[in-house]
């Protein structure tokens, strides 16, 4: 837009209203202190090895499927699986993973993109993913490329204890480590909001050290409580899903991408008697009211966008809402375009505050194309003005030569 401004800068004095408009747009395109929610990421971690921990992998894969169904694309999901249950020799169903004994849904179907697998799932790699401190050789697909407008879902499952989570049966992630990583992420503008969801024993203790604003955490059990598995698949011979994850999935199975269920409805859906533990959520670091935050803000990829094109201005709010949803489906493609829309929207809001300016430029700022058209109209006027000015200068020239002679 600046490039448009520069050639025309000669005519500032003549084009005062246009100038005002431009400056307002330029102001809004610089980074705003509270960035808009622009994209969604998910980091899904299964930390435990061994056949008898089948359910942890099933938990993670179920969550993977859910967030993918709700619109987070594969390139924005970092999936870490500490073991390969599908190809374990003890698996009665080779290359398949189930989270229910009815075996209706194979979680390990065609489109599963595992980013960190087996012994790659370490505390070090996990912290590197969160903080973005990778070695240069690490491909982009294995990095968490989030920015200050990102909502991140961090889901972890495995065996935990008081303020730690076991990785790979050999190391552990402590609550300090997690809190430190989150703090670094905040400092590096790697997220706008972060939802940490943990399904382990004594999961609540893992959040004790968190300090960074914008972090919401939910764990499957309080200190001193165990998180239990939901049911045993006597065909495969192992427990296939944990209770907390099972009821989380049950909640999401009822939802589709257009639903407006809030986080508070998710949190209140956990029944301690069914869970056999007390789900705990920590929201003191989180500013927004949970009733107003749709779950799709984290588990899907649905943005809070307000589309107000001039052509659609007369449309009702509901219809424009649907338009937003459609936009979000192919948001990765139209990402840049939509960002532009958002900025224009911001400009619009400012115009709403200055009604007199708006009156002068009726409809001009609704859409860039109209703005440009307007500009070009103005530019034609300038040409004629220039011509008139030149014509008016002829008598001046004549008079001046006459005075000199």
């Amino acid at each position, binding site marked *: 837009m600046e490039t448009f401004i520069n050639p025309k800068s000669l005519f500032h004095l003549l084009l005062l209203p246009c100038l005002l408009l431009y400056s307002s747009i330029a102001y809004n395109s610089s980074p705003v202190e509270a960035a808009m929610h622009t994209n969604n990421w998910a980091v899904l971690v299964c930390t435990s090895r*061994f*056949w*008898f921990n089948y359910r942890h992998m099933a938990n993670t894969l179920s969550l993977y499927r859910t967030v993918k169904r709700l619109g987070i694309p594969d390139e924005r999901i970092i999936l870490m699986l500490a073991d390969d249950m599908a*190809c*374990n*020799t*003890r*698996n*009665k*169903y*080779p290359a398949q993973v189930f989270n229910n004994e009815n075996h209706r849904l194979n979680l390990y179907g065609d489109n599963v993109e595992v980013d960190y697998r087996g012994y790659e799932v370490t505390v070090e790699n996990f912290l590197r993913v969160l903080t973005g401190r990778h070695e240069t050789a690490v491909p982009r697909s294995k990095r968490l490329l989030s920015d200050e407008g990102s909502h991140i879902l961090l889901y972890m499952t495995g065996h935990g204890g008081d303020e730690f989570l076991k990785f790979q049966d050999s190391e552990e992630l402590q609550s300090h480590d997690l809190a430190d990583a989150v703090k670094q992420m905040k400092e590096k503008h790697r997220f706008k909001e972060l939802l940490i969801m943990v399904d382990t024993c004594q999961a609540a203790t893992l959040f004790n050290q968190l300090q960074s604003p914008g972090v919401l955490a939910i764990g499957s059990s309080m200190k001193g409580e165990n998180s239990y598995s939901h049911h*045993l698949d*006597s*065909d*495969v*011979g*192992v*427990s296939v899903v944990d209770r907390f994850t099972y009821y989380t999935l049950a909640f999401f199975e009822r939802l589709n991408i257009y639903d407006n269920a809030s986080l508070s409805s998710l949190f209140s859906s956990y029944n301690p008697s069914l869970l056999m533990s007390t789900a705990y959520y920590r929201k003191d670091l989180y500013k927004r009211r949970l009733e107003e935050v749709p779950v799709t803000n984290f588990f899907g990829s649905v943005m809070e966008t307000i589309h107000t094109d001039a052509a659609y201005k007369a449309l009702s709010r509901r219809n424009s809402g649907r338009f937003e949803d459609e936009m979000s489906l192919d948001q990765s493609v139209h990402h840049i375009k939509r960002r532009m829309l958002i900025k224009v929207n911001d400009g619009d809001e400012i115009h709403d505050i200055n009604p007199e300016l708006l009156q002068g430029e009726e409809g001009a700022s609704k859409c860039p194309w109209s703005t440009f058209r307007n500009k070009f109209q103005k530019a034609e006027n300038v040409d004629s003005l220039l011509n008139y000015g030149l014509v008016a200068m002829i008598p001046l020239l004549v008079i001046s030569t006459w005075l000199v002679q």
Partner: protein
Amino acid sequence: MAETKEKSLSDEKPKPRVRPIVRLGIFLISHSFLVSIVCCTAGVLALFLLPVLAKNTYISENALMPGSASPMLSNQHVSDGNRLVKDLTNPNSKSSETGIESHKIIAQYMLDLGAEVSFHKFHPQMNQFHPLHFFSSPVSGKIQENYSCSSYGINTVGIIRAPRGDGKEAIVLVTPYNALKSGFGEALSLGIAYSVFSLLTQVTWLAKDIIWLVADSQYGEYAAVAAWLREYQTPKFSSLSTPNAEMCPDVNNLFELKGHSISGSKFSNSFRRAGTMAAALVLKVRDQNEQFEDTISIYAEASNGQMPNLDLINVVNYLAVHRQGLRVNVEKLWPLLNSSWLKSLGEIFESLAKVAKSLYPKWKFGIPATEYVEGTATLASSLYYQALGVPTGPHGAFRDYQVDAITLEISPKFSLDKVWRNDILLRGGRLIEGVIRSVNNLLEKFHQSFFLYLLTSPSKFVSVGVYMIAFALLIAPLPMVAASLYVDANSSSNCSKGDSSTPSAITDTDEHGIAIRSWSPTTSFMIWVLLSILSLLTLNSVLASPLACAKATQEKEWALVKSVTISSVFIGLGLMSVINFATAEIGALLMVPMCLLARPLKLDVRAGTLRSFCRLICNLVLGHIAFPPAAFFLLKGMLDGFGNANVGDFWMWVESLWAWNSATYLFIGMVQLPCWVLCVSILFHTC
């Protein structure tokens, strides 16, 4: 802190003060009489409390997950097993003299399932005594040369490779089978194993290879399994050490024939192996049915009181009780079940526990009296078989290679008609399948649960941390009494002789005993006793002449001898408790009271008080009981009735200890007998 305090105290007082630990030691030594009474009583009491203190077993290894998978063994597999049973019990198959026909049938059945099959020829080996080879495998290099081509056994081995496994680990299923005179039970055990085997060829979840060993038990079950294991664990790479059995032409011909007659390409003449063994199950079915319900007996004791990991027993127990509805037995000393004094002891403990519970509700340690009696009987048998050091079944051969193994013996309740046979095939097969699937889930060797334990019931155990207390209490007074005796005796003299001779005398007698093994047990035993006494007296007169010392010191000489005896008993028991706890515990029960009470009879007779008279009687009784043959007769008489006791039995018993490499043999020869001789010499001391 304590030291500095000590220092400051010593600074204040000019008199040098000894450290508290030394003072405590001196105090204990000076009150050694009281200490020894208290400790010994507590030790015996603690031993009788063990059934009360037993904990419930639990599955310690997460990976096992027994019973989490539903059994897949169906009636189809059972009917397959039934077919094999029919073929084996068919009189035609028994026509051959060597029983080779039934081996052929089994091999053909295995091949039909797609398993790899091979035969293993072996010669029964005489056991050789290897002192100090308690926990190691027999050395393969020392195979005897005098094979005869007429006596050999054939093990049939079938191997299923895990379809997606890495072939590094294996689970072994053993069914002893005597082709010449097989009972119906043996055929049935083969049927159960076959039905499981046929299932396992179809499943996709195997992570470990399955080896089914049909052990030819005509030379004993243990010998066949041990021979196969020796071959399995010590591969022969050079042609120099080709097995001697190959030299017998007729044996080779038989195998050539077989190789051609059997259709499958998976049959091989060479020895086949799979990976390291994770666990082994020996399956037997008992012919006689004296039980009122289907029971399954678990035998776990291997050589020298080694036990398989408790988790293996737990898995079998859990699956048998909670999945297949079988009653699980472990060995009991049956005569103890009817003893009234145990029952009253149990009632006393029960009422004590009730009182304790009424005082403080959280104290819950009481068990019902009947349960106590059963627990004690099981514990006693557990102690006895561990102390014996002789394996209770073919599983003992596996333990020598550090493989966890148990023998399962199924005793069906009803006569084995068709329906009941199918039922026992199904339930037995499902039990074996469950155990195999559970072990299949294992990621490492069994290591989580206990290796040192005593069972008081199939689901209760006493761990090493608990039972060592009883033993420690029993032997704790020994060093104190020895020290106090030494201090007392040393105040007047420092002449101590007369003990060095006896151990050498005993080793002499042992050698005599070995030399005369070919005679009948009773004469052997008598000759051994006579020779021992003779050599003992000779050596005593030569080396330990009482005239060597001055007359004045003789009065205290017995005290010095007693002190030395007690210290050597202490050292011997301490060492033995590391090698085989049960032997040490039983030995301590016999020897500690005798050593502590020993006192010259003359002194007691001279004193003439009631106290000395009691001591005299005790000494005489203990002196008899602690003599190993006497103790053996007494125990055997108490358990089986005195009518059956025979003098030769002891000889046989010791011979079996020798044959099985038992450390108990060494213990009796090197600790118990010498100390008994010393004690007797104290009793008859002339002073």
